[in-house]
């Protein structure tokens, strides 16, 4: 965990109200997929936790959706602006459990952390299948980026305007996979839990105070006791989850 200043390198709206933010700064603490950063936004008291989409030495990519006035302010920041981040937060995904052909399932704002995970798994020589779920065709992002990693990519949209009509679980039917990793809204995670055929890991979202385990604002109950989503999570393994 580190606190440091990052400089905004680029910011683009890659889908309606969805922004890709590239920052330059100290990325030493950011090598694990599934971790997040906590960003201080001028004029707002609490930081905004955002999952890491990609990281290369000195460069961090985040993708976030504007959901309130804090992220609205963030979306208006421009090249050269400075942001104070807490980095290296959360446990991240455990890649050692992946097997030969893992399945990655991301829904909406849960798609970004799947990218760094896919990249790392691809580098490790895994045969990847990726399901990306959105509401509608206009919201789809990063399809080509996942394909460029050599992954088999399945898109689902609720309205059927792109890919398979329906939810990510519709795309899971009949797939053969060794293990799975997922991130997305709560109802999607529950649906994935119910339809999955193997063990897997889930990344959860919760309103946080600090993001590093001090305030216990984001506690959840697991089969192994209370866990803090920010510190003991956000990734929980399938078998410990209590819905």
């Amino acid at each position, binding site marked *: 965990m580190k*606190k440091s200043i990052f400089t905004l390198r680029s910011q683009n709206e890659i889908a309606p109200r969805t922004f890709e933010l590239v920052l330059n700064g100290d990325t030493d603490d950011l090598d694990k997929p599934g971790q997040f950063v906590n960003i201080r936004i001028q004029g707002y008291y*609490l930081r905004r936790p955002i999952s890491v989409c990609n990281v290369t030495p000195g460069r961090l990519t985040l993708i976030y959706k504007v959901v309130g006035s804090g992220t609205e302010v963030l979306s208006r920041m421009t090249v050269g602006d400075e942001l104070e981040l807490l980095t290296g937060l959360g446990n991240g995904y455990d890649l050692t459990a992946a097997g030969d052909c893992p399945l990655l399932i991301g829904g909406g704002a849960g798609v970004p952390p799947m990218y760094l995970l896919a990249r790392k798994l691809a580098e490790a020589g895994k045969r990847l299948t990726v399901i990306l779920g959105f509401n509608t065709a206009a919201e789809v992002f990063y399809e080509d980026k996942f394909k460029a990693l050599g992954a088999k990519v399945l898109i689902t949209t609720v309205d059927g305007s792109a890919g398979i009509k329906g939810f990510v679980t519709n795309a899971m039917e009949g797939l053969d996979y060794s293990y799975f990793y997922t991130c997305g809204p709560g109802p999607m995670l529950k649906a994935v839990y119910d339809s999955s055929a193997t063990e897997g890991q889930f990344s959860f979202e*919760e*309103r946080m105070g600090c993001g590093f385990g*001090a305030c*216990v*604002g984001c*506690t*959840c109950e697991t089969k192994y006791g209370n866990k803090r989503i920010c510190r003991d999570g956000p990734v929980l393994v399938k078998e410990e989850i209590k819905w």
Partner: protein
Amino acid sequence: MVNTSVTLCGLPMDNPIIPASGTFGFGYEFADWYDINLLGTFSFKGTTREPRYGNPTPRIAETASGMLNSVGLQNPGVHAVIAEELPRLKKVFHKPVMANVSGFSEEDYVYTCQLLDKEPQVGWLEVNISCPNVHNGGMSFGTLPESAMAITKAVKAVTTKPVIMKLSPNVTDIASIAKACEEGGADGISLINTLMGMRLDLKKRKPLLANVTGGMSGPAVFPVALRMVWQVYNAVSIPIVGLGGVSSAEDVIEMMLAGATAVQVGAANLVDPYACKTILEDLPRVMEQLKIDSLSEIIGGAH
């Protein structure tokens, strides 16, 4: 060289900076960020007789210049605190710690305080009669002088270490509660706990916090806290620990001038893990600017 040392209820402290209960866990979370032995002490997570899960989530909401929490005293219970948390803390913190205690009955407070009083690591007992996030207990003891005095007396009867009563700002006359604690034998008063508040989710048209209400903290509450420290200083002669929105070395000095012997820092730790370290680094410079040689000499200096 300026002198930052103070004495709180007979125990010397290198400086008056104390991370507030509920914002600092059992310390070791912050030991990952900096050497917490720099602190005067810290007040550990509110501990109850039995383990508590706390309230359902969401437990956190933002406010202008502050936040709401409705954690609801999540803690592993006094036996686990003694068996697990204190030994873990011992490895990273070598000063007397402030043990924060909550309860749901007089017997609860007595039971928990009696056990923690025996722990050599504990320097002070901070008795929370002001948690706004639990029902049938917590704050209800701190809103009437009679019950505040009863809890104070009961705890004092079974303990040997300094007892600091932590008061709620959600009362009509803070001075009368503080006086009742003093009459009950309290060695000190800490204030303020959080102010009760709430927010709504506009899209869902429902309360943002699952518990509906929460406790407000952060810079927005600082003037309220300062006013109450001022009033309590006028009402009692025992030491006061001032807290509520403190975020800078200047805030610390302001609290001390109003009457605080030591100062707790709460929500600031959550938005910046280095908040207390930064305050400690800034303190000598701010003292020099304000021509303060010794912090202990300015306590109540604005009266």
